[in-house]
């Protein structure tokens, strides 16, 4: 038989065979591989084979069968390779999905990933998906989120965007979460609102799928005996897939997926793929929900811990206050009563002793010293009382008028004239009323020994931003700023006890309440006091 072709040559040139393409040069040197892969398609080889058959060579049919079998197996292998390639892609997708789902504890992120995966072309490629979650407290399955276009125009716009941007699943999901989560929720609000089914409604197809823990492919929904007419109308599609989300035997929720735009058939393959995907999604949703709850509980515990700490501090403060109160009470009774008795009887004796009595001087000394001790005691007790102010909202006018009433007699008897002008509608101020009363009384009575001729005190109040400014202008006392500053330092000189602690105590009391107290002295005009009272409840200083 004449050899018209190259098939029996061990090595051939590129020009010898038109079937060998660029990139297949290794076939030029491999006779066996060349024959099995290329010669079967070569017309010259087929002609040669035909001549072999014509010559009634018994090998001809066998050779033909071998070549046909080889071709069939080759096609089968190609099909299997294609199948494996698809499965590899699917595995990679599920792996990518799993990685994203495993790393997130944010419910919105998990849901964004899940629904993006179902609807993305790179994922399961469904047109639309609804996620429903079980609410164990309300005992219902309710619509939570929807994704997908509502019409063809929106579909082509969205899908074009996706094609142009060529994003991977994670980027798509992030993009969805950042830009579309709330708008999609709003877009499907009407549908989601109606997708609420009591878990007790065992005949409802959604609950059947959930209880059965298996996906259900619904076809012919509008005539389907198990599909409520309102559900079919709501979804507006004849075919959809119900995929329950089950995590550790617990019913987490449900995904309803359909191809409402393309109407592509949902295959068994789609259903199985989605079923595989459903497990990690359910697990991730449950974990994210639990994390959310944990976060809420953690915040609650943190808040409770904070409150407990505040309570503990309050208890400590109250104990301190109680201790100070007990000490104060003890001092008041232990010291003041004997002082009063000594001083009182000394006065009584003085009153009844004749002027010529040589012991009168001694008795006068007792009276003076006990009086001095009483004043010192008053100041110490007031100082103790100032350590723990009790603040509340009070009316400034009520405060000033009450103090003016209290001091009216003594000030009038000493020839003082007082005046008070107030801005209308002053807001209430946050102060310790008792302490402020004491301070005002002290400031007003501080000048009873003043040497000035102008014995007038003017008080005014005005609202400025978050404060009420109280000004007391005393025109009777003329001292230098240095002398006044000295009077504002508590216990700066012990010899001054009983004579100059009043103003210093006022300053301490007001500072304890975070109230600025400014005293400016003018040797000719008198002293101007400014007390800035807060109108808002601030944190304790």
């Amino acid at each position, binding site marked *: 038989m004449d050899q018209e072709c190259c098939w029996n040559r061990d090595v051939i040139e590129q020009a010898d065979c038109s079937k060998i393409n660029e990139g297949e040069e290794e076939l030029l040197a491999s006779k066996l591989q060349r024959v099995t892969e290329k010669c079967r398609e070569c017309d010259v080889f087929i002609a040669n084979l035909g001549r072999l058959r014509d010559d009634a060579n018994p090998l001809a049919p066998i050779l033909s069968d071998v070549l046909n079998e080889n071709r069939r197996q080759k096609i089968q292998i190609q099909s299997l390779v294609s199948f494996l390639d698809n499965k590899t892609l699917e595995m990679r997708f599920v792996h990518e999905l799993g990685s994203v789902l495993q790393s997130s504890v944010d419910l919105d992120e998990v849901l964004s990933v899940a629904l993006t995966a179902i609807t993305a072309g790179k994922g399961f490629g469904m047109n639309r998906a609804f996620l429903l979650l079980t609410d164990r407290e309300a005992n219902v399955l309710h619509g939570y989120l929807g994704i997908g276009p509502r019409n063809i125009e929106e579909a082509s716009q969205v899908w074009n965007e996706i094609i142009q941007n060529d994003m991977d699943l994670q980027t798509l999901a992030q993009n969805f979460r950042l830009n579309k989560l709330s708008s999609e929720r709003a877009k499907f609000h009407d549908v989601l609102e109606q997708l609420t089914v009591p878990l007790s409604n065992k005949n409802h197809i959604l609950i059947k799928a959930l209880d059965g823990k298996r996906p259900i492919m619904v076809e012919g929904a509008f005539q389907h005996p198990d599909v409520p007419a309102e559900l079919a109308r709501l979804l507006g599609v004849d075919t959809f897939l119900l995929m329950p989300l089950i995590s550790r035997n617990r019913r987490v929720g449900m995904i309803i997926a359909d191809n409402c735009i393309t109407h592509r058939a949902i295959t068994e393959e789609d259903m199985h793929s989605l079923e595989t995907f459903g497990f990690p999604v359910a697990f991730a949703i449950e974990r994210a929900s639990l994390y959310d709850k944990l976060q809420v509980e953690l915040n609650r515990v943190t808040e409770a811990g904070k409150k407990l700490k505040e309570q503990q501090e309050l208890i400590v403060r109250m104990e301190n206050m109680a201790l100070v109160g007990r000490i*104060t009470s003890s001092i008041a009774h232990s010291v*003041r009563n004997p002082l*009063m008795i*000594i001083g*009182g009887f000394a006065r*009584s004796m003085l*009153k009844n002793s004749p002027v010529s009595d040589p012991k009168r001087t001694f008795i006068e000394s007792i009276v003076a010293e006990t009086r001095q001790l*009483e004043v010192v005691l008053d100041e110490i007790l007031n100082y103790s009382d100032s350590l723990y102010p009790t603040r509340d909202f009070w009316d400034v006018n009520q405060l000033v008028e009450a103090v003016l009433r209290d001091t009216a007699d003594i000030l009038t008897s000493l020839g003082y004239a007082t005046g008070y002008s107030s801005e209308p509608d002053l807001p209430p101020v946050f102060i310790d009323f008792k302490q402020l009363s004491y301070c005002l009384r002290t400031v007003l009575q501080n000048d009873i020994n003043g040497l000035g001729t102008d014995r007038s005190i003017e008080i005014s109040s005005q609202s400025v931003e978050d404060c009420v400014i109280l000004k007391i202008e005393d025109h009777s006392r003329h001292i230098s700023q240095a002398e006044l500053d000295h009077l504002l330092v508590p216990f700066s000189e012990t010899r001054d006890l009983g004579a100059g602690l009043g103003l210093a105590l006022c300053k301490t009391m007001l500072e304890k309440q975070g109230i600025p107290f400014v005293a400016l002295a003018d040797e000719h005009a008198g002293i101007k006091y400014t007390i800035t009272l807060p109108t808002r409840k601030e944190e304790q200083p």
Partner: protein
Amino acid sequence: MSRLLVVDDEANIRLLYAEELKDEGYEVVTAASSAEAAEKLQGNVFDLAVLDIKLKNESGIELLQKLVKERHDMPVILCSAFSCYKDDFSAWLADGYVVKSGDLTELKQEIARVLAKKAQKAKS
């Protein structure tokens, strides 16, 4: 002559008050506790009561509340070692408040003021 009831748990203070107030022309009856005060009040009329706030294990404020309820025509002056009660709401029921001092001038002035006010009220 106005009759005063003085309630204080300190014997020497009762004595001091009694001496000083008698000198001022008042008839003074003293009591060391709420129970004794109640006893002295039984069947007697007083023009004014002077109460200490801290009476051993009792509260003068409670006695004040009782007196205001049962003897609303008898004014009460609180006389206490504590200046802090002066601004306390619970003490506002009293007609006067004096911080204890060896100098009884303020107490005497307060008694005179309250009695004058009572007399004026009775007239009107």
